């Protein structure tokens, strides 16, 4: 374990010294802020488009970070020959792979925390201005109908009404919980992604082909994974069988994408389901890392 931690420490150190993923932070922040400053029909309360775009950027950036760092690790060690002095020490190849995985995954986690903090600040700063003014306009627009729950809460809070205060508290808590769940599931998914890419990096000799194939594969799973069974239904037999098998074998990364729930202010997911999803992700990560180790175990390193 000590060895694993030491190796992951090196991975993280390299990442922050290389500085190249700061570019992604800056880019994401810049695009979001520029889009946030656009006014649509003089309505300052519109937030969801901004959340949507910001989360999309975060997802893309995180995938780029995860894939490009994980794909580089082992080939770079071999190319720069840094792997030789390292493996000449009492380090097993399993520890080496685990260390690389852990380093990449922790780095992704740190990046995600930064991204989601930014997202939280952006969406909540707009969301607040929303609740402070919705009251009047929205009730006017809805023929005196009860104003939106949020506005209601806010007025309640201003009035110091205890019941409403409670309500507002739980609402904020649920928003926060939503963010935390989104972050956690996202991070678990990046674990699977990192493991996939690490496996790719010991299978394919060229990092660039690994990056391309992993990227296409992962985006494919995210977009199509959940629909494969419906597609399979419409196919003839041999193809159907293949599609079904793939459907059941693929890691269903799309589960971990709960952006919609965050954007559209849905209630948080039950903890049981989150736990099960976490188990699922951990199982797949474990499986993939095991396969990586299996391939790498007896590999001749001079080639």
């Amino acid at each position: 374990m000590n060895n694993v931690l030491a190796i992951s420490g090196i991975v993280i150190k390299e990442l922050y010294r290389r500085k190249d993923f700061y570019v992604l932070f800056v880019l994401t922040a810049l695009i979001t802020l520029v889009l946030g400053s656009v006014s649509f029909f003089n309505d300052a309360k519109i937030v969801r488009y901004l959340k949507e775009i910001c989360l999309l950027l975060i997802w893309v950036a995180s995938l780029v970070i995860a894939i490009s760092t994980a794909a580089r690790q082992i080939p770079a060690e071999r190319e720069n020959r840094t792997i030789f002095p390292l493996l000449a020490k009492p380090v097993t190849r399993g520890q080496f792979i685990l260390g690389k995985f852990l380093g990449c995954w922790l780095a992704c986690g740190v990046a995600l925390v930064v991204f989601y903090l930014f997202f939280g600040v952006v969406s909540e700063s707009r969301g607040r201005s929303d609740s402070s003014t919705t009251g009047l306009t929205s009730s006017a627009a809805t023929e005196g109908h009860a104003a939106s729950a949020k506005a209601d809460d806010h007025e309640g809070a201003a009035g110091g009404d205890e019941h409403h205060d409670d309500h507002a508290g739980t609402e904020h808590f649920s928003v926060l919980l939503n963010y935390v769940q989104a972050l956690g599931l996202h991070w678990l998914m990046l674990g699977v992604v990192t493991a996939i890419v690490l496996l790719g990096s010991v299978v394919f000799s060229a990092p660039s082909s690994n990056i391309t194939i992993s990227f296409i594969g992962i985006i494919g799973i995210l977009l199509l994974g959940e629909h494969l069974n419906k597609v399979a239904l419409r196919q003839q037999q041999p193809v159907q069988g293949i599609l079904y098998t793939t459907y059941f074998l693929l890691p269903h990364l799309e589960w971990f994408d709960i952006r919609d729930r965050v954007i559209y202010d849905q209630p948080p997911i039950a903890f049981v389901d989150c736990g099960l999803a976490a188990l699922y992700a951990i199982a797949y990560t474990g499986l993939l890392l095991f396969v990586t180790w299996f391939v790498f175990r007896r590999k001749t390193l001079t080639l």
Partner: protein
Amino acid sequence: MTRAAPHLVLALLLAVCFTLATTIQPRTRAWSDRAKSGNVLKMLLGDGRRMFANHFFEQADISFHSGYYPSIFDQREPAGKSAMASGKDEHDAHDEAAHAKAMAFLGQPRDWIEAFGRHFRITEHTHLAHGQEREILPWLRLSAELDPQRIDTYTVAAYWLREKLGKVKEAEEFLREGQRNNPNSYEILFELGRLYRESLQNNVRARHVWEFALRKWNEQDSGGAKPDPFQREQIAVNLARVEEEAGRFARAIELLELGKQTSPNPAALQKQIDEIRQKSAPPSSAPNAPAY
């Protein structure tokens, strides 16, 4: 000399590039019309922008349904116009039911993967309400930006702006913009008329706009483009109401007759015509009756 040489070469190359750029640039304008349009988006995307415009229009609808939306893989029953585009409040229970049925695309999960995956999806069919409808606006704005010739973007956005968000001024501006981009669109004119009549209670302007819309419809009809006959009915019936209120019964009847031709419910229109006839009958039976 040797020290300055690289700098000189650099300066020379820059000068060459600059000269080339300035001489060639006017010519490239002739190569494609992309470069001509001042619009950055148009230049970047070319004709692909129509596709993106469609995408963003749909995104508005997704937003209207809070993310509960069928993918291309879900077998969706043909639902006609989406709830967002038609403005659901205007529609009767029958439409409502049809829409609900069309949106019930999820069905029973086929396997455990799908069943479990639903915990992470939005599985409830809802519509935005209480002023939250504003969330669809950015997507519509974007859609209009990408494809200014897409007409329903303007009409739909204007509807929600004035009906639910109380932003009549913005709605009018947007419709005007749409009209500038589509000078022949009777749909936009019709929506503009509704705005004048329903939101600003300005029957005079409404009447002008609708008359104009009717003319545009006829122009398109005679021009060979097949304009929507139901739209003509809508325009005619609404215009008839204005004319009736203004006391121009003959014109009102004429318009209702026109609407009857294409109406799905001609009997109702006939009834209206009869009512107006009755109203206008006394003065017509006593043509000399003085106007008190």
